[in-house]
């Protein structure tokens, strides 16, 4: 399908359907629900990064007046194994132990017990009455040290997966991964130039502004209702059911509006605790994390240590490439080394490469997805190495990438052949962009980098109901994290041929909408959008049948044009078109209400590529790096609502610049996070940033009716290396480790 066509609604920029509620304070977010008779839940967290729990006694807390429930690991069902599902996956037993420690605490802030009381202050006082005895163990905090053969073990039962021979001894390396093609040694022999680099990035946090929050109420029949801010209420429901050994039908999950997630709100933390506390107290229980708890005990992004080696001919053709990529998993296995390894060379057409990935346990919080999980760190390494290669070859960095760029038909490093993709188009657009032609300001440097993310499809459902007056109600199951209701309504308007303003979109709870996977993987506009389009096509088919019945003609005598049933050309020309309003006025007589539906497992999510460049200035007295200008070019396939596509590109750029320049988890020698707040974990503020220029490229995705590719995650992949390469350009010094904070940059300048 997907050839260029004229659209009536798609590509316009209307106000989002949920907009008014979000600018007036009406929209209900995770912590905004208060119920009658509600209790406040609080969590007791480990003061140690690694310790054996000898005893937990909640009885004194429970005896306090006003305290109605107190739980610890002993109140959870026994360990059950199996994949938890959801975006990050992982073992049920691990997720269960992450939400509440059992025999061991594995990071500072790990949940050990929880209480529910009539006020938050009483709940906090009750935490102090809980007795816990620990046997403190040596924490494993450094990624390289954790990989050493004689390292203390985070988990004595962890044996490295995917080795050629089964591991004999336990290790902190939970799994390895290898990808290879061709003959790397031969490739390096053919090279005229070889560059190597080694790069380190500490853990960072997604930094969503809304802390995790949920309210649960369990009735006397054991049926639970949970309101929570999440990227996927179906996924959180099944995770909670697994961890608590409950039936899915006994859990109803209602997604509130969500105040940012970026991957971090795809996993359970508070939900099973609130359900257990409510079950014990038979009262609603509200739980809200403090900002400090969010930093200490939700799921940051993996810290990494990467090595890249590239060989190339004088004309820039890469003859061999190797990548060694180690990712911190935190306390439980499941670092995104798989996607990192699959992404690292994906933008390039390589004959000879070898990639090794490592999933490494450390006594830090269990990592969660963060916008293209694993890819930004790998791209930082690869794109930094490519920058050095361009310098060695005296080539323009965009030209070097053009020489090697993957295109339609290229076999991706991770396996499949690419269908139509837009990398070359993005590179060519960046090359002729007016901002690229501008001279680099005095004292600044320019960095260029490419970003890539696979994008996901997965399962989605949608229903389209026609109201009595012919207006349209969409029901789908993906929390709207950045304007997806607007995209759904635009695609429905286009398909049905009715005005955008006639369409409303409900994000239904787990009882009101069909199953949908998480709002993640840049999948919602692509996959759920496809379900909405198909549900609209179902409505059109039914409307044509109703028109045929009304007119007394065969269904094949009816066509659909501009939101109306019309007679096919040439016959019955006297019949007046029937609008949705006309059809609904007569619906009771032609068969009753009209609702269309679709459910699918979407295949063919088109890969997303971007090219970013920016001019950054380094203050040589302080080492502070300022962003002077920044340009993001990205292939969106087809931008349904261009303003929200630009928003993804701009937001990703700034988030990535924060990662590159400021952000890092700072742990002390005992594994205690020293900067668990926005004052010391400093994300970019408005005065740090310039305007972010964007250019949307549209190379339609052949697998989507309107050509859509996901756009949410790719924007975070390029900025890390853009910043690193710009600092290299400005100073002549390659700072290999992030963040490019003033002390680190200054030290590098002084060492040069």
């Amino acid at each position: 399908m997907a050839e260029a066509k004229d659209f009536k609604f798609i590509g316009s920029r209307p106000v989002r359907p949920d907009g008014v509620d979000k600018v007036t304070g009406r929209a209900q977010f995770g912590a905004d629900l208060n119920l009658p008779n509600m209790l406040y839940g609080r969590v007791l967290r480990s003061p140690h990064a690694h310790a054996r729990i000898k005893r937990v006694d909640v009885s004194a807390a429970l005896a306090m007046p006003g305290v109605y429930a107190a739980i610890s690991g002993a109140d959870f069902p026994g360990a059950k194994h199996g994949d938890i599902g959801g975006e990050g996956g992982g073992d049920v037993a691990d997720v269960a132990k992450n939400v509440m420690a059992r025999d061991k605490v594995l990071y500072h802030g790990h949940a050990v017990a929880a209480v529910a009381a009539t006020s938050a202050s009483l709940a906090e006082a009750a935490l102090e009455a809980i007795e816990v005895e620990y046997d403190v163990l040596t924490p494993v905090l450094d990624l390289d040290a954790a990989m050493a053969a004689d390292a203390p073990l985070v988990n004595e039962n962890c044996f490295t997966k995917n080795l050629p021979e089964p591991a004999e001894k336990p290790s902190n390396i939970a799994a390895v991964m290898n990808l290879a093609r061709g003959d790397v040694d031969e490739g390096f022999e053919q090279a005229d130039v070889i560059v190597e680099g080694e790069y380190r990035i500490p853990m960072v946090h997604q930094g969503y502004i809304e802390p995790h929050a949920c309210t649960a109420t369990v009735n006397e029949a054991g049926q639970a209702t949970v309101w929570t801010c999440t990227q996927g209420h179906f996924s959180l429901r099944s995770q909670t059911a697994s961890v608590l050994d409950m039936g899915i039908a006994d859990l109803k999950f209602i997604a509130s509006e969500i105040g940012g997630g970026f991957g971090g709100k795809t996993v359970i933390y508070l939900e099973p605790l609130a359900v257990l506390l409510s079950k014990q107290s038979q009262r609603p229980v509200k739980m809200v994390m403090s900002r400090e708890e969010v930093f200490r005990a939700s799921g940051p992004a993996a810290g990494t240590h990467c090595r890249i080696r590239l060989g190339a001919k004088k004309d820039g053709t890469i003859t061999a490439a190797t990548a060694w990529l180690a990712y911190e998993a935190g306390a439980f296995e499941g670092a995104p080394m798989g996607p990192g390894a699959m992404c690292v060379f994906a933008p390039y057409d390589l004959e000879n490469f070898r990639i090794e990935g490592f999933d490494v346990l450390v006594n830090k919080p269990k990592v969660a997805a963060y916008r293209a999980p694993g890819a930004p760190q790998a791209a930082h390494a690869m794109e930094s190495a490519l920058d050095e290669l361009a310098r060695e070859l005296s080539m323009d960095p965009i030209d070097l990438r053009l020489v090697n760029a993957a295109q339609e038909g290229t076999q991706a490093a991770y396996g499949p052949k690419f269908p139509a993709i837009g990398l070359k188009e993005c590179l060519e657009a960046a090359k002729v962009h007016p901002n690229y032609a501008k001279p680099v300001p005095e004292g600044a440097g320019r960095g260029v980098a490419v970003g890539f993310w696979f994008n996901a499809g997965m399962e989605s459902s949608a229903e389209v109901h026609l109201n009595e007056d012919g207006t349209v109600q969409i029901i789908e199951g993906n929390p709207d994290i950045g304007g997806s209701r607007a995209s759904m309504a635009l695609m429905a308007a286009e398909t049905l041929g009715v005005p955008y303003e006639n369409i409303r979109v409900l994000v239904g709870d787990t009882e009101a909408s069909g199953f949908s996977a998480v709002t993640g993987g840049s999948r919602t506009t692509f996959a759920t959008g496809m379900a909405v389009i198909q549900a609209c096509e179902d409505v059109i088919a039914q409307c044509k049948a109703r028109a045929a019945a009304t007119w007394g003609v065969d269904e094949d005598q009816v066509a659909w044009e501009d939101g109306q049933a019309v007679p096919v050309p040439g016959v019955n020309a006297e019949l007046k078109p029937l609008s949705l309003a006309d059809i609904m006025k007569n619906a009771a007589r032609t068969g009753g209400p009209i609702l269309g539906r679709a459910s699918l497992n979407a295949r063919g999510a088109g890969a997303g590529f971007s090219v970013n460049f920016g001019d950054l200035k380094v203050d040589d007295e302080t080492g502070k790096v300022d962003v002077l200008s920044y340009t993001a070019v990205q292939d969106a396939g087809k931008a349904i609502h261009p303003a929200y596509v630009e928003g993804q590109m701009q937001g990703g750029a700034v988030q990535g610049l924060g990662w590159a320049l400021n952000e890092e988890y700072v742990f002390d020698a005992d594994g205690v996070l020293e900067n668990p707040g926005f004052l010391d974990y400093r994300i970019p503020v408005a005065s740090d940033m310039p305007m972010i220029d964007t250019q949307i490229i549209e190379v339609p995705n052949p697998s989507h009716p309107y050509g859509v590719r996901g756009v949410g995650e790719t924007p975070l992949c390029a900025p890390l290396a853009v910043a690193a390469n710009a600092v290299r350009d400005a100073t002549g010094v390659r700072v290999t480790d992030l963040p490019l904070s003033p002390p680190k940059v200054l030290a590098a300048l002084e060492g040069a």
Partner: protein
Amino acid sequence: MSKLHVTTSINGDPVEFLTAPEQTLVDVLREQLDLTGTKEGCSTGDCGACSVLVDGRLVCACLVLAAEAEGAEITTIEGIATADGLHPIQEKFLEHAALQCGICTPGYIVATKALLEKHPEPDEETIRYWLAGNLCRCTGYDKIVRAVQDAATTLAHEA
């Protein structure tokens, strides 16, 4: 300790409430008065999601004790739109797609109102420094700054 009785004005309405001495204004607004449009992102004055006006001054409601509301005039996000409709700042945030998740938006709108009352024709730098106390993790700030610029122009024309 017994609770304190506070008499105040919120969005023009006379309001009385009881508060513990250590309770913050954001806590009373959200948990007692059901004014949940004011959001809480950090409780330490770093994110600005709880921005409100106290006697016309922009503050973080998490850094104000509820007892300090005594005798004050407080404006929250619920008091920005009027019976005539949305405030131009709210309209411009919608037109410019200056929100993605929307959790920071109430704070931005209150902060922008304070900014434009003090600086009706702010340049980009003034906007960026005035709004530096409000964190947005989604937009990268570009569309927020443009919405504020456009709102300033609109309000100047209306004036």
